[in-house]
């Protein structure tokens, strides 16, 4: 799949490769009313990463339904709409607006954008508010609901469990990691919003360990995301327990990245004579359990 905010509305890639080959497309984060986003600059490259403070600039849900969804209804690839709100009620209204719109196959709830503040904190850093948003959206939609988790917490497993309990159909993780860039000539933060969200290869190890941890805490499917640039990266996430993966920042350097990664996974499966990708999901977890098990037997 493609990660929200890094693949537009999918239409932009039609001329680049056959997007119908992808597993799913997650479109740009969408809010109830159009948003203009944050002040410039909004991007800063870092070692192995990218800091962004876009601030959810988007056309709003009404324009999305009017201008974008019609094209999606003829596509084979499912399109998932990523939604973001400032209040629990915003999420409910977004889900209701999108209910019954043809061309939309699911919702991804962004409770984790570090660039937009909701009452001073991210919804996703608190199991209570995360549960509330999930329950509310679930009662307002008949579409599958993916909840996207933030890494900016030390309770990710608890939040994951709470959201799963509240009825989420799947989880995606991680969103960007909060970060900053200082310009030593001005002695000020470079980004207009002062802080931003870090993405790209720099966050891959963080994302991977979180996927691994959450996979031990829930039984619903996990979508791994964070720094995936090659098929090998994707395979690591799958082996850590992800049933699917999202490609984000890698698409900027290589617009073909989502397809290259997909083909790389197929190639790996061919070489390793793996018939079904499910054989690989969580492979690292079961082996780790075995190792721990073996150690216990030995120690005992």
């Amino acid at each position, binding site marked *: 799949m493609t990660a929200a*905010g890094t*693949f537009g509305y999918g239409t*932009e890639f039609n001329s680049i490769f056959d997007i119908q080959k992808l597993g799913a497309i997650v479109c*740009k984060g969408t809010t109830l009313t159009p948003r203009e986003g944050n002040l410039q600059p909004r*991007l800063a490259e*870092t070692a192995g990463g990218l800091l962004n403070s876009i601030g959810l600039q988007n056309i709003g849900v009404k324009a999305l339904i009017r201008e974008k969804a019609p094209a999606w209804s003829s596509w084979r690839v499912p399109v998932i709409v990523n939604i973001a709100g400032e209040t629990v009620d915003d999420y409910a209204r977004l889900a209701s607006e999108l209910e019954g719109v043809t061309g939309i196959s699911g919702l991804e709830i962004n409770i984790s954008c570090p660039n937009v503040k909701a009452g001073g904190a991210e919804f996703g850093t608190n199991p209570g508010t995360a549960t509330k948003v999930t329950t509310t959206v679930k009662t307002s939609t008949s579409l599958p609901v993916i909840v996207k988790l933030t890494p900016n917490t030390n309770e990710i497993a608890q939040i994951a469990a709470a959201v799963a309990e509240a009825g989420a159909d799947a989880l995606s993780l991680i969103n960007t990691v909060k970060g900053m860039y200082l310009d030593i000539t001005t002695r000020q933060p470079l980004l207009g919003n002062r802080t931003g969200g870090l993405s790209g290869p720099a966050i891959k190890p963080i994302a991977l360990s979180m996927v691994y941890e959450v996979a031990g805490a829930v039984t619903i499917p996990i979508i791994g995301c964070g720094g995936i640039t090659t098929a090998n990266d994707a395979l690591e996430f799958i082996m850590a327990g992800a049933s699917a993966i999202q490609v984000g*920042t890698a698409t*900027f350097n*290589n617009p073909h990245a989502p397809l290259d990664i997909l083909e790389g996974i197929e190639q790996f499966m061919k070489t390793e004579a793996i018939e079904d990708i499910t054989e690989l999901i969580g492979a690292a977890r079961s082996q780790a359990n075995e190792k721990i098990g073996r150690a216990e037997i030995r120690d005992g």
Partner: protein
Amino acid sequence: MKQVTAKIIRNEPVLKELARRHARSISGSWLIWLRCPEIAREVRPGQFVMVRCGEKLTLPRPFSVHRVKENRVALFFTVWADGQGTHWLSRRKAGDSLELFGPLGNGYDIYRASKNLLLVGGGMGVAPLYFLGEQARDQGYALTLLLGAQTASQLYPEKLLPSGIDLVTATDDGTAGKKGSVSALLPDYTSRADQIFACGPRAMYRAMSPMPALKDKPVQVSLEARMGCGLGICYGCTVRINNGLRQVCQDGPVFNLNDLPAEELNPI
């Protein structure tokens, strides 16, 4: 838009380094020729490409198309003393391959009714204007190119410029051409111009914006912005014009000077 792997035909320094105190120092400016028929076929003056600068960098770098000759495309780029991508690019050799995608953006728009075109380049601004000038000259337009640089060593070599275009130069320190900024030359050349095309730092546009001599002239300027994707999807390069938000990479990089509010002309 094509994503291609292009062979480097030549990659050579054209301008020397320049140490600067209150601005980024320059390690030289280079001309790189690439074999990429897919882009050469499609590209229009003012459009740009995104170049992947090695495995270590997360973002590709935007560069205007500087020249087109049959199936070859040239870029003209400044290597910043602390610029990771441009340093990497300057070290590529003939025979190496380069990954890039483009052409991107809207490009300049020459009206059919125009006869006399005035091009105004500040510093690296010559990059897209070369392509525009050469193509417009071949289509029969009369052209004047005003070219400015900080100092003589940073002025694009006259012998490399296309023939058949009137050239007027200026340098900040007076080491070549008229002393002063290139925008100061403008008022003397606008009366005959049907259209004006500019590329340079935002400070140049800031100086141009209030000029009475430009008041009723159509002026197209090319903007720079920090870019993520170059494809209109990341919203990193947003600029506010008089009637709303635009993406520099897709709706630009060329905008009408009239449409740009003063606050957008501050340096980024």
